[in-house]
């Protein structure tokens, strides 16, 4: 590549893998630092869902609600996480979409599989993630993250992990 670009796909993959690791290691405060101050985090109830405003979601958090959600995960009185959930996740099939070199923003599509274990029960989650990333001050920030679970429309037991 002749021109100096804001980011390479390797840098973005490294970022996604690091993010996945923070979640598996339950380092929620560090994970929150990856998000910009007006970021949103969204797990729709259907892959056809167009917006989080006129339809219920599995999760739709603005920055404020995301902070509260993470603070609860670190609260010692959280019954649903006692004992804590263990996860192991694989991120793959990373592709870049809608690259805007001028503003240094990019949409990144990836697939994921997570094995979750808690209280002698194991579950598998899988689906597609769309990261809306911006690059500034030499760092990536998540401006928005949409996670489409393959079983989003299914009947599930309580979910306390983040995707």
């Amino acid at each position: 590549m002749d021109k100096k670009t804001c980011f390479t796909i390797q840098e973005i993959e490294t970022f996604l893998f690091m993010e996945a690791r923070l979640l598996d290691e339950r380092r929620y405060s560090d994970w929150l630092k990856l998000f910009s101050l007006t970021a949103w985090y969204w797990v729709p109830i259907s892959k056809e869902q167009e917006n989080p405003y006129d339809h219920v979601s599995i999760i739709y958090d603005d920055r404020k609600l995301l902070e509260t959600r993470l603070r609860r995960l670190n609260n010692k009185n959280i019954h649903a996480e006692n004992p804590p959930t263990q996860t192991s996740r694989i991120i793959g099939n990373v592709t870049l979409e809608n690259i805007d070199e001028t503003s240094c923003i990019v949409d990144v599509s990836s697939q994921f599989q997570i094995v979750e274990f808690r209280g002698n029960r194991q579950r598998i989650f899988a689906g597609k993630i769309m990261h809306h990333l911006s690059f500034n001050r030499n760092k990536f920030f998540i401006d928005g993250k949409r996670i489409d679970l393959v079983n989003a429309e299914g009947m599930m037991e309580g979910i306390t992990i983040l995707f």
Partner: protein
Amino acid sequence: MNIDQLVEAGRVHRRVYLDPDIFDLELKKLFSVAWIYVGHESQVPNPGDYYCTEIACQPVIMTRNVDNSIHVLFNRCGHRGAKVVSDESGNSDIFTCCYHGWSYSNDGKLIAVPQPRGYEKNSVKIGDPAFGMAVVPRFESYRGFVFASLSPTGPSLNKFLGSITKSFDDLIDRAPGGDIVVQGGVARHLYRGNWKLIFENLCDGLHPNCVHKSSIEAAENQDDSVFSDGAGEIGVRQMRQNGVPWSFWEESVGLWAFPYGHSYLGDYHDDEKLIIERKNPFFKAYYSALKKAKGKNKAEKILSIARWNTNVFPTISFMSQFRQLRVIRPLSVDKTEVLGFCFRLKGAPEAMFHDTIRFANITNAVASPVLTDDLETYDRIRRGLEAQGNDWISTGRGMGKDTEEERGVLRAENGLSELHIRNMFNVWLSYLSK
């Protein structure tokens, strides 16, 4: 087994939550007899529309016929018994079975049989109800809320609901346009525990400060200057509300219990935004629409009602002022499905519906920071009840301090009473011992 011995004043035997034989008895004597919520008419607005659900673990379908009438049918082919309609909802003029192609109209009549030769001895005739999709014995609607009973005899829906209809009225009357519509998708979750637990929990004023401690503390420590598009604003407020002290529940919250097992918790929120949304940017537009439709006095009266959860035993729990409804479906003695629906008030600003959705995400979403602690609690009850040593579960809080407000309607001492649980089990016993 003598069922009468399982319910006593102030306590129930743990088997009512654990025994698969009792669950079978419940399906037969309670869920196949009582009025069971099927759906709201707005889920099938046009001819050909259908919505599939279950009554007593049996597949049923609510349909809108070409003549605009609503029908509730068993979702089963009159030929070999396959479930005819597999999508949860949709529109079709004709229901065709996947197995041998028998087809039915929206009211369940058999209208076509491919390769009809050979059935002569079987007397299969087009239009014969014996070979149709069977109509459930009774179905009725209260202002758009459709209920069905698998029993051909029994009290009317009006008698069954009694004055708990005021909660339905509260929900509908809030609409400036005079009607409500189910919209915004379905929030689903499953818990490992008996179906009765959620009815107990939804009018239990004592539990939030224990069960929801993690989300209460997280919300209390939230910096309010952080960016919110509305989601966090409603969500954090709701979590904080769960933390009101027990003294508030004793002094300011009421609990009422009704014939046929219904109940509601009232006067819960003193938060203006959540009760009547007077501080919301859209409130002015909503209020003026309501005032225009109903007149000022009526509008004020409508907005002054503050009911929290209304339980309609044994299938739904709804929040009239927050426009939410949960359908509780028992799957087995220790597995229960819950479906959450939202209502749009006709004639209300769009922003108000967005708040309804935000509220649903906090109260009914499977990953809600509030709900997940309830689900964990049901799971622990299921496991804990297996323990021997004491066969009895206490339901006696506030016992002996109830007052009769109107015929058959009891008001508890305060919002921390277990009146609704005792009332539910009295009614439960009368169904099961018949």
